[in-house]
Structures are given as structure tokens and as C-alpha cells.
């Protein structure tokens, strides 16, 4: 796969389709890839990587990149393409300056999972059929690839590349996933249990803002939480209220625009399952206002900018979920 992408990148650069390529750049190790813009043949040949560790969603970079003039080619995995389409819908990306190459994705691997298996000092990985072979300072380990998949990939919602100019690999389809099962578990708890659950999770928040800054739906020029005049700017996490405030407002602000790409949970340095907040909103919208997938197409009206005369009253909250 990596070679096909590399060849494509070179081809697009050389036939003038694009004057730069947005992709993933090699790191010190096999897993620390950085999103980067490649401008020369040499850079692509030496530094372009596409591997099971290319988890970073490149679509948000296109907000800035598409405004720089010239044409940028980008590789988008299926879930990245949902974010991309959603950003198009919000008129955040200048489509005419972007050439999209859709790439099929077999699910991305999670270094945290590798470390959780006690794998320290990892030096290289190889693929052996469905197994991942890990060389470490302390010996060789073999794990089934499925065990190293990121959580968001285990419950992958779609292998379909929504928007593309050309496609590498087969076009996929939307999948039946049980991505709402954890939400349903939480809903079935008592209010007190849910409160305890979220207090425990959110109390780890260090207010680094990584979830917000990586989020393709969080594309405000200036966030209310960065605005000293808003009265809610806080870097402090001085009180548990502030963590709740930040995460409630953030989740609510991306409601109807969140494509469930899972970047928030991937980047959280404290392993807070932030996607569970967004998924709750998606599940609610699906159940109350009809199935809606943000980023699935450029036209459908999102539930929060729409209404029907016989929508449920807010008091419906009393009759849904657990106690």
C-alpha cells in the first residue's frame, strides 16, 4: 500500500495535478508519523509513509492548506473523508484547490495498546499475515493485528471514501458496527453511577486542549475558551466544574457536525474516552430526529439546524435510558 501511495504522490507532483502533497512523514520510530506537506520528489521518496500508524486525520489541515494558493493533493482514509466532506459542507475548505486521493484503510494500530501489553523498547514492527511482529529491546513479540487496533477502528462505521477525485484500493461500504454499545451501557446505569463514571474520567483532564485542537469540527478562528473576555477562559482545571463545562460545551458545539472520527480520544494524553460524549449526541439525534451521519454527503441538513413541528419535548429525557 505504501508504495502505491508513494508512486501516486510522485505522479501527481510530476504531472502537475498538485504542487504539493499532504501526507504522513516518517519519524524516529515506526509509529511516530507526523502530518506533513511534501514539495519535492526527494522528500516523498525518502520520507513519505503510509502504515498502520498513520492514524492522524489530515482533513483539518486543509482549512489552512487550501487557502495557500496552488493545488494540494491529500490522502484521505474513509473516516478522514467524512471529516473532509463535513468541512466542505461548512465552507471551510476551498475545494477547487484540493485534489483528494481516497485510500482504503484496514484499521489503524494503537501504540498505547502495544505498551499496555507490556511491550517496552519497541524498535520495529513487521506484518506477518494477520499478525504484527514486534521487535523490542527485550525480545520479539507477536500479536494478532486485531488486538492492536485502535478502539475507534474496532467499531469502524464505514469503509466508504465519501469524497475523492481518485481512489486507491477498493471502494468500501458503510458497516454495521456496534459503536453505540458503550453509550447504551452508560445509559443503563443509574444517574449516580454515570456521575461517578464521568467524574473519574474527566478529573484526569489536564486541559491541554489536544482534543479540541485536533478535532476537524472544532474549526472556530478563536475558541470561546481561548478568549479572555468570555469569562470562561481557564487553563486551570481548578475545579471539577471547569472540566465538565469545557467538555460539555465542546461536545455540544460539535453536535451534528462530529463525524465520529475518534481523533479526540486518540490524542487525549490522559486516555479519557471523549468519543463517548460525541457518540451519545449522535445516538440521540439518530433516535429522535432520524438517522444522520455528519459528513456522509454535502447536502443533508444537520438535525440542529432543522426541526419538525412535532419534535419531542425536552421532557422526553425523563422517559429515555436508565434511572
Amino acid at each position, binding site marked *: 500500500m505504501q508504495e502505491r501511495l508513494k508512486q501516486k504522490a510522485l505522479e501527481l507532483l510530476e504531472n502537475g495535478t498538485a504542487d504539493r502533497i499532504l501526507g504522513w512523514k516518517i519519524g524516529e520510530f515506526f509509529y511516530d508519523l507526523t502530518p506533513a506537506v511534501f514539495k519535492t520528489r526527494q522528500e516523498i521518496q525518502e520520507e513519505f509513509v503510509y502504515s498502520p500508524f498513520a492514524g492522524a486525520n489530515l482533513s483539518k489541515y486543509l482549512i489552512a492548506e487550501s487557502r495557500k494558493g496552488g493545488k494540494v493533493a491529500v490522502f484521505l482514509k474513509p473516516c478522514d473523508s467524512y471529516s473532509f466532506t463535513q468541512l466542505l459542507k461548512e465552507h471551510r475548505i476551498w475545494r477547487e484547490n484540493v485534489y483528494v486521493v481516497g485510500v482504503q484503510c484496514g484499521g489503524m494500530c494503537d501504540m498505547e495498546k502495544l505498551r499496555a501489553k507490556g511491550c*517496552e523498547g519497541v524498535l520495529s514492527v513487521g506484518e506477518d499475515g494477520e499478525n504484527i511482529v514486534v521487535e523490542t529491546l527485550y525480545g520479539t513479540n507477536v500479536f494478532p493485528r486485531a488486538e492492536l487496533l485502535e478502539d475507534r477502528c474496532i467499531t469502524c462505521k464505514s469503509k466508504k471514501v465519501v469524497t475523492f477525485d481518485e481512489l486507491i484500493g477498493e471502494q468500501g461500504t458503510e458497516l454495521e458496527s456496534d459503536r453505540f454499545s458503550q453509550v447504551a451501557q452508560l445509559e443503563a446505569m443509574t444517574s449516580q453511577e454515570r456521575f461517578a463514571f464521568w467524574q473519574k474520567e474527566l478529573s484526569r483532564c489536564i486541559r491541554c486542549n489536544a482534543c479540541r485542537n485536533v478535532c476537524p469540527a472544532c474549526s472556530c478562528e478563536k475558541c470561546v475558551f481561548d478568549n479572555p473576555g468570555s469569562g470562561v477562559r481557564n487553563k486551570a482545571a481548578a475545579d471539577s466544574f471547569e472540566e465538565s463545562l469545557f467538555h460539555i460545551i465542546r461536545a455540544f458545539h460539535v453536535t451534528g457536525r462530529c463525524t465520529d472520527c475518534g481523533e479526540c480520544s486518540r490524542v487525549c494524553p*490522559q486516555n479519557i474516552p471523549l468519543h463517548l460524549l460525541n457518540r451519545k449526541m449522535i445516538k440521540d439525534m439518530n433516535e429522535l430526529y432520524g438517522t444522520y451521519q455528519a459528513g456522509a454527503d454535502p447536502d443533508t441538513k444537520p438535525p440542529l439546524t432543522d426541526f419538525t413541528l412535532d419534535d419531542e419535548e425536552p421532557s422526553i429525557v425523563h422517559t429515555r435510558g436508565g434511572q
Partner: protein
Amino acid sequence: MKKIAISKLNDLFSAISKEKVLYIPADDGANQARFTPWQEGLTLTDKLNTVRSAKDLFFPQVENLVNFKNSGKAIQIIENRTEPQPFVLFGVRACDCRSFDILDRVFLSDPVDTFYKTRREQGVVITLACNRPTETCFCGVFGIDGADPQGDVTCWMDEAALYWRANTEKGEALTAALPMLTDCAEEAIDPIAAKIRSILSKLPLNDLDLTGFNRDRMMELFNSPQWEDLSQSCLGCGTCTFVCPTCQCYDVQDFDDGQQVRRFRCWDSCMFSDFTMMAHGTNRPTQKERFRQRFMHKLSYFPNNNDGIFGCVGCGRCLQKCPIHMHIVKVAKALKEDLK
């Protein structure tokens, strides 16, 4: 040199916590370790290091400074400072232990930060040699020895025993209060240290070369054309700064709770857009400048002002946690190209 059987570790922790509050690195249920106050039943983590560094205990993320209240035309100042209780910090790694030297240079030089100073005085640091260094470790680059860390007490562990060596008066005093530690030969730790050193010598980042990052090359580095490329994918989050054991910038903020104003300080990050934003409104305008500030501070400004000591200890946290993996090793290696 003292020792105690691993099976008696609980007794040791119990005895220490009778004297002082004891923090040990323990799993927090989210697949990561953090320094946690010891209580019966809490066990040491298997993880190499905590996600949040040991600086938290001396320089917490949020610290109350003082409260104010308006009464008529007078402002009433309400002291709300609480003096920290004596505590023991067990299981600090060599890198984090060195970070205290760096923080000391900032907070204990004039004007002395008394909040930090009291915590340093009240805290006893027990370090633990790193049996299983990982690929992101590069403390050796800064002359730190993971097989023989500093601290008030240094510990080594193997399957059978914990070895204990007091290094300072504070360490001696603590040792004296722990009769369950038995004497043993100095050489007992040699095989452990040798094993660790053999792994340390194989670490992939050992080749990081930081020579030449000195004062006369500072402007050259500052003006490097590479900052543009290096910073282009930076998200501007504060992950690197907040997990970093040596980042020490803070912001002082006021919170009006409706009755009084609470002045507190909290960690700040040079990666944030409102960092050092003042009335002029023109702090570092783009992520390039913010990004450059962080790495120039660690690799150039800090050593220039502090006898060549880098503002990095090679703990590898930012290597593991940066969402886009643009970390100090990549930056240092790229800048090194400019210096050739």
C-alpha cells in the same frame, strides 16, 4: 546500602506512610500510572513511568495564591495559603529527578518561589533505577544515568529485593526511621546496574548529538528556515508542555466567585495562542513563533543562562504523547543540520 525483600514492600510503604504522606506510582485504571498517595492495598505500577511527571508534587497545576475582598473602598487581603505536609515521593525515575535540578534553577533563584521552596524542603525524593528503559528514553544524552539515579534515596529492584541507598541527610533521616531495612553489601546492586546499562547502551536515541547548541549559534538557530516546516503540523495544544517534567511557565489569573476574587496560578503553555498575552495584544502571532519558543527555550535559551544545562531530561513523554509526534528529538535533529 540497605535492602528489603520485595514481599515486604508493603511493610516498608506502610512504615513510611506512618511518618509522612507517601506517593508511589500506581495504575489509575486508565492504562497509565500516576503518583498516588499510598494506602493499604495500593501496589507499584508495572509501567516505566507516570504520564504526568513528578514535578506535579512540587509545582502543581493549580495553586491558590491569595484572595481579595472589597469592603467599601478598602481591599481586604485574605491569606489562604496552606503549608504543605511533609511527604515522601517514591519511585521517581532518574530523568524526573534531574528535572528538579532544572526547576530549582528557576524557582529557587532570586526571587525565590516560596511555594515551590517549601514543597522541596518538605519532600523526600526516593528514586528508582529503570529496569526496563524504553525506546523513547534518551536521558543518557544529558548525562543522566538510569542505572544510578540521584535523589535523597536511590533504590534498585530485582525479583527478590529492593536495595536502598541514602544519599542525603534527608535520606539518612528517613532510613533511620525504617528498621525493616537490613544492611547489605554495596556490590549487591552491581548486577542490576550492569544489566540496566547494557540496555541503556542499546537505546535507539543514544545517537542524539546536542553539541554546538551554544550561545554564539543562538541567532542562527532562531532564524533557521526550518521552523516553518517543523511547526506546520503542530496543533497548538499543550500536551507536550503539560506532561513535560521541566516546563515551568505559569499564568496568574483571578477568579471572581461573586463574593471575593481568588487569585491563583496555573500551568500555562507557550503553545497556546494567549500565552503571555498582555495589553499590547501582540504576543507571538503564529504557531511557528510559539513552537520555536518552546524548543529554543529548552535547547538554547535555558542552557545559555544555566551553565549549558539543557531544559530537557530525555524522559520521552512528549515523544509518546504528542498527538502528531513532532517532538524534541525530531526538532533537535533537524536543527543540528543547520549547525553543520
